[in-house]
């Protein structure tokens, strides 16, 4: 307060500061722009770099068989293993590689199988949390559960891609319900939609293959192949590898599908025989089988979605 104004002027109080400030000798860090949502490019089949482990296993297997043939031929010719140690060691090393890789693949199948069960448990926990909007759970607890869920997604999967987006948009002041809502919007819903899209595409392919298959054996093989491919591709969307053997529940659905396809083939054959061997009868038979194959593949996919959702 100015001293000039008056003696009666109420004196302005001096306030005690509750904030202390010090100068820092560093520059302010730059904030980066958020990533673009439209960069939602994720390819189902990623281009492999170098030789994959599967190819190596196959290659080593073939080499081992060949090696044994050569070795066998060689020993037959020389009739003395002790006299040819180098050849023996090379073939032995190749065989060891083959056995090692095969063991690793088997372990991965087992781990994939375990992963599906864990994912099913996680999915239930998430469904429960979403139903009660994370009530009674602190944001840090919810965040930790979601992180644990997200970390299980395999690298390069669509789910991992979505989880990265979730991580970028997560903010420190979000409540439990908001974190769950964000996770639903950025991970659960897009993954579900993508899985549905992949399944639709696979079912169309299954139908097409069934339509063009010349006989029942080829048709059954095609259905088996497309079924495994559907499982693999959808698992890739979900970021979980159920393993080629997958889950027993899936295998059961697969077996049911093959049996149903077989029965359907017999029925359509019989109907076609009754009508006569005309081209239109063959066309009708194949069309019916195609629809059935597509529907059965969709059934398999839905079972998978139900498991992993």
């Amino acid at each position, binding site marked *: *307060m100015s001293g000039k*104004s*008056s003696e*009666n*002027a*109420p*004196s*302005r*109080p*001096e*306030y*005690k*500061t*509750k*904030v*202390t*400030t*010090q*100068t*820092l000798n*560093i*520059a*302010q*860090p*730059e*904030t*980066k*722009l*958020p*990533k*673009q*949502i*439209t*960069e939602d490019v994720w390819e189902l089949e990623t281009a492999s770099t170098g030789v994959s482990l599967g190819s190596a296993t196959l290659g080593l297997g073939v080499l081992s068989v060949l090696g044994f043939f050569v070795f066998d031929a060689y020993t037959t010719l020389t009739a003395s293993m002790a006299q040819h140690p180098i050849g023996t060691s090379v073939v032995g090393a190749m065989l060891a590689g083959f056995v090692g890789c095969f063991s690793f693949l088997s372990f991965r199948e087992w781990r994939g199988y375990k992963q599906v069960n864990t994912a099913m448990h996680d999915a239930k926990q998430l469904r429960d949390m979403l139903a009660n909007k994370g009530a009674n759970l602190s944001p840090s607890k919810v965040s930790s559960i979601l992180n644990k869920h997200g970390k299980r997604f395999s690298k390069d999967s669509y789910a991992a891609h979505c989880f990265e*987006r979730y991580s*970028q*948009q*997560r*903010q*420190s*002041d*979000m409540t439990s319900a*908001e974190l769950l*809502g*964000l996770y639903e*919007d*950025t991970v659960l819903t897009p993954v579900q939609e993508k899985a549905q899209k992949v399944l639709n595409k696979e079912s169309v392919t299954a139908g097409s293959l069934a339509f063009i298959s010349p006989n029942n054996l080829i048709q059954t093989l095609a259905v088996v192949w497309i079924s495994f491919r559907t499982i693999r591709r959808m698992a890739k969307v979900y970021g979980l590898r159920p393993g080629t053997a997958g889950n027993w529940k899936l295998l059961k659905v697969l077996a049911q599908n093959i049996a149903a396809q077989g029965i359907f083939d017999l029925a359509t054959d019989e109907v076609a025989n009754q009508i006569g061997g005309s081209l239109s009868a063959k066309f009708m038979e194949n069309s019916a089988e195609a629809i059935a194959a597509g529907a059965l593949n969709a059934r398999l996919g839905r079972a998978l979605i139900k498991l992993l959702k």
Partner: protein
Amino acid sequence: MQNTIASSLMGKTRAIASLTSNTLADVFSKETHRFTITGLSRSGKSMLFTSLITLLKSRSEEGLACLPLLRYLPPSRVLDMHIEPIEGYKPFPHLKNIESLEAGDWPEATEEAYGFKLVVRLKQTASIKRHLMPHSDVVFEFIDYPGEWITDIPMLNKTYAHWSDSAWAQLSSGPQQYYAHAWKQVVNAFDFEQTPTPELIQQLVSHYRDYLIKAKANGISLLQPGSFLLESSDFNWQDFGFTPLPSSITSDVSHLWYRAFEKHYSAFQKDWLTPLKHSIFKETDKQIILVDLFEGLNHSRQHLYQLKETLSHLADTFVYGQSGWFSRTVLRKQQIGKVAFVATKSDLIPENQQQNLLSLLTQVTEGARARFNDKPIQFEHFLVSAMQVTDEGANKDAIRYTNNDGQYVESTFEPLPKTLKEMEEGSHFPVPSVNVPADFKARILAGKGIDRLLQFLLGKGE
């Protein structure tokens, strides 16, 4: 009323008469939300608008991942977004504000009313509807106006004598008494026996305005008439100004000065406040009330109490209406009014103290909220940072920022009070003076709370 209903129906009928799938979508799939953002001067309205446009544009045009909690407008459904003017309003100077930020200056305070519509076009997802109406529009109407105007609206319901007595009592108490002394001395020394000539009136108004300016600079929120603070005010306060006078004069209705100011006050009400209330504060179903708690925290507990009193006085200004006649009567859409009390600049305190700030906000709005107890109004409190200008400090009680001298500093806060009562007498929390960061766009996109606020106002209570 009859004319309004008839013209509304005629308008709809004319639009329906020229149907194509796109116009069908325009007629039936247009959802209009009118937002009135109310806030005292310096509450950050202009910066909030600038951020809001930047955020929505970056999200829809550049596809940048921001506003994660705005589930009402999922990015996958947004086709495009554009800004349209509102008839009778100047367009909001968004580009000018961005240029100011680029030049390192904060956007200038609003001195006149601006209006704009933000039209977000969404693609239709429902399978049948998709073919009939390929898109739907969500229209946001925003009005920005000087915060000084809002403090004047309650003057509409008072006579000059009533207003003068209450203004005189106010400037004699509370924190404003420290700044009103010079003005009171002028009044005491003034010879009110003189005939009120335009020159003498101008002289008195000028002294009163000096008090208003000084008090405003020192964080006083209840200042009337706020319109006198604006140089470019549409009301000619230079020729039709008035001031509060001691009750010895206002109690004598035959006093020449009373009659002169009473006349000017009536002109102020009739020519300025009445049209202002009708043009800006008209019926709306969504109100955002911005509160700058830092003005209080920066000064004293008394300032915070005064802010609470000001908000309580202003509560009558807020208009809580329903949707238009057509949607209410024909489409049977009954809307509940929504009010959001928003504390701006929340990034200026450490994150671990934001709960206390929210609690303080809840207490400061108590009086205002009491006014809509019997109305169908849903309300919520929010903390918002239109731009994340601060960074985390070395500890949880600290924040870092670049100050006005261009130095990168760290401020450590003692715990913020949870209630007004807890605010220690004679202490204050000086508000950080922050420079505009060079990476302001990224920091606007990193701002917090706007998505939560919009989701509350637009969502259906989920």
